[in-house]
């Protein structure tokens, strides 16, 4: 079996690496066609990654992307498409920010404040995703449709609440509005990155912990087994005693709770308030990263780092006159090709395994016939 598992490792790597190479080739071709020397562009991007500030920012982007990917992956493992991570994290971040910035919080010890903020965000995310889960199990509404619609509702709700008459205040010295700034005790200090003016989010540890928890849940718990079984074959899961409706609701709640965390590193480590310029769209990035990382806790970490690195290094492109949108093209090509590559590898692997079994057993029936 040692041979099998070694093979499964390199087969597992073949798809993402192959897709990445393919995407690089496509981008090189586009760059070449538009008159930019591909090698120089690559050099500039890699070179910029060596700058401490870019590296720190890449890690920070990766942190939020990873949390978003885990939220999506929890659903994916059960064949549930939580497209609503985006709305869930924005609503959660806004309400958590309002709580964290409220004046009564100043009296509380720092750890409790942070825990309450993060807990509130998870709760809001879970409730928002739970609406979709509830609609699915009671009324059979497709979670794809309902979560997309809930994204729009979340946008409207945030706009309504983020108003000086309600939860927002005007940010001093600008016409931006946001929740009251979180005071020192409610913030999560970052790690200094040598040579960089920007810190690495302290909540990068939270992302790591979420990854470990996700791995543990999937591989070591009965709940995780039920989740995966439901995703693989609903009919077999039902026959094995899984209550599918309960699983749908539970996994939507979990996915939403994880989604609630997406905004936390930024809120508690950099912005300290939810304002109009709070980053949006992270939920959709999470879908791409979950696909790229094959819903695997480690795979998604690499995917998130890759994505973060591409995002941050793209800034250097403008300086050399290359449109930075080339990075978006590259990201798009990576996702498309990786999805295809994974399916090809999956089929190839199944065939290999079947052939192995055939070979291992090849002589057995014949030997019996001799006796008969």
């Amino acid at each position, binding site marked *: 079996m040692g041979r099998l598992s070694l093979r499964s490792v390199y087969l597992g790597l073949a798809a993402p690496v192959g897709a990445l190479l393919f995407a690089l080739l496509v981008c090189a071709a586009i760059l070449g066609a538009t008159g930019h020397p591909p090698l120089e562009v690559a050099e500039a991007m890699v070179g910029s990654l060596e700058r401490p500030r870019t590296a720190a920012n890449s890690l920070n982007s990766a942190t939020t992307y990873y949390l978003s990917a885990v939220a999506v992956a929890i659903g994916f493992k059960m064949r549930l498409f939580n497209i609503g991570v985006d709305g869930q994290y924005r609503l959660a971040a806004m309400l958590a920010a309002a709580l964290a910035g409220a004046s009564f919080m100043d009296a509380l010890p720092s750890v409790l404040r942070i825990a309450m903020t993060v807990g509130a965000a998870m709760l809001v995310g879970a409730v928002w995703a739970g609406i979709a889960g509830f609609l699915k199990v009671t009324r059979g509404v497709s979670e794809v449709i309902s979560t997309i619609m809930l994204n729009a509702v979340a946008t409207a709700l945030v706009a309504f609440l983020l108003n000086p008459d309600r939860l927002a205040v005007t940010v001093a010295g600008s016409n931006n509005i946001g929740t009251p700034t979180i005071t020192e005790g409610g913030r999560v200090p970052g790690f200094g990155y040598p040579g960089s003016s920007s810190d690495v989010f302290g909540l990068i540890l939270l992302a790591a912990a979420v990854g470990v928890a996700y791995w543990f849940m999937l591989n070591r718990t009965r709940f995780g087994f039920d989740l995966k079984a439901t995703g693989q074959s609903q009919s077999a899961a039902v*026959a094995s005693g899984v209550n599918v409706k309960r699983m749908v609701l539970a996994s939507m709640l979990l996915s939403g709770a994880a989604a609630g965390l997406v905004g936390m590193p930024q809120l508690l480590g950099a912005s300290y308030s939810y304002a109009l310029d709070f980053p949006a769209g992270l939920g959709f990035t999470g879908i791409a990263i979950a696909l790229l990382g094959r819903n695997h806790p480690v795979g998604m970490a690499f995917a998130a780092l890759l994505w973060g690195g591409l995002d941050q290094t793209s800034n250097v492109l403008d300086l050399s006159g290359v449109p930075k949108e080339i990075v978006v093209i590259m990201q798009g090509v990576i996702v498309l090709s990786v999805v295809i590559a994974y399916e090809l590898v999956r089929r190839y692997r199944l065939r290999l395994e079947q052939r192995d*079994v055939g070979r*291992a*057993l090849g002589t057995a029936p014949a030997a019996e*016939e001799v006796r008969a």
Partner: protein
Amino acid sequence: MELRGITKRFPGVVANSDVNVAVRGGTVHALVGENGAGKSTLMKILYGMQGPDEGTIAIEGAPADFHSPADAIAAGIGMVHQHFMLADNLSVLENVVLGTEPRTGGRIDFRAARARISEISARYGLGVQPDRLVDELGVGERQRVEILKVLYRGARILILDEPTAVLVPQEVDELFGNLRELKAEGLTILFISHKLDEVLSVADDITVMRRGTTVARVTPGEVTARQLAELMVGSALPVPELRESTVTDTPVLEVSGLTVASPEGRTVLDDMSFTIHAGEVLGIAGVEGNGQAELVEALMGIRSLDAGRIALRGEDITKQSTRKRRDAGIGYIPEDRHRQGVLLESSLWENRILGHQTKPPCARGPLLDRAGARADTERIVAEYDVRTPGIDVAATALSGGNQQKLIVGREMSGEPVLLIASHPTRGVDVGAQAAIWEHIRKARAEHLAVLLISADLDELIGMSDSLAVILRGRLVAEYDPRSVTPEQLGSAMTGAAEEVS
């Protein structure tokens, strides 16, 4: 024509292993064997549709190496498929020349083709009229067109794959008449069938295949149909039988007034009541689709009841979830293993957990016990003879029979009090079938109650302590398996004996 040492492997199975067939020129040679004995694979190899992994084919002493049916046709081999390959809206003439149109200049020379067809038809007594539309022809006539088609292509060796499967007896006689004429003209015919009386009446030589290999070569004069059947299934054919009765008077499963309607409102189970005692096997006989699937799903809690009560060991489980029922000790061998029995893309040891997520050795509290599950999977693989290189391979890599053995082993684990078994030995080989029966017998002696649903009447009669017949969602008759015959059961299953019971 001679085949030597032909071996062909498919994922998970060896379809042919060391097959040897020697066909004398100018004879009708029959190839017999049960379904799945490897006849069709052998034919595909012979016709160039698949290449053998090992072995050689020789035609009239010269070695042949076919890479496509075209090679086989060029070597004078023609194949008449079980399912006709004719275009209905073309005439016989057009069908026959399709693909090998005789041309003069750029045009099809229909006149030459028509002349040849008439000539062939007359020579072999096929009675085929070239200008009729295939659509208008009967099954027997279509078959003769197929035969003519291969003769037109110059075949000297004809392969007929289960040619009588689609024919009524009168047409079979006609076909055999044609075959004798073909033989008289010096052609060689390889005739594949599992209908033994036909084989005995038409063949000169018979080769018997069993489980992928050739096991005997006989002539019709030296065997009876019965002996041939024994050769086909193997002499060590296991007989399903229960020795002494182990039935106790402790009821395990009590079902009363069970009524289930389909989502469309049709009643699929109608007021069904029965009791199974500890140590008792209740067999349910019935034509498929008479409510067996619904009964099983209702008992497992997968389908909700419209009325009735189910009690397990005296405790009402009517409202309990599937998981609670499994925890209470119900084992479940589903009818459709791919749909309900296994996670195809998961490993064997993960499949061991399926349905037993809550119990040792698979779980400890809310956590999985991976080591326990793996160890117990090894035990099942050994005890139930699951043929696999290891427990980390995905279930889909195993053959259906081996998947079934894994499922049976799993569901017999953890000392169930009740086993609901739908077709427990479907698709497994003879040896494994005997092993599964033995396991059920052993568990029955230790007071397991079994609900056995099977399409195999011998299995039902041999393995059951009591027998009931299900028809249109009702239990219509009960029999004592010690005295009932398959014929009696058969007529009750179709409703013919409804009035009698």
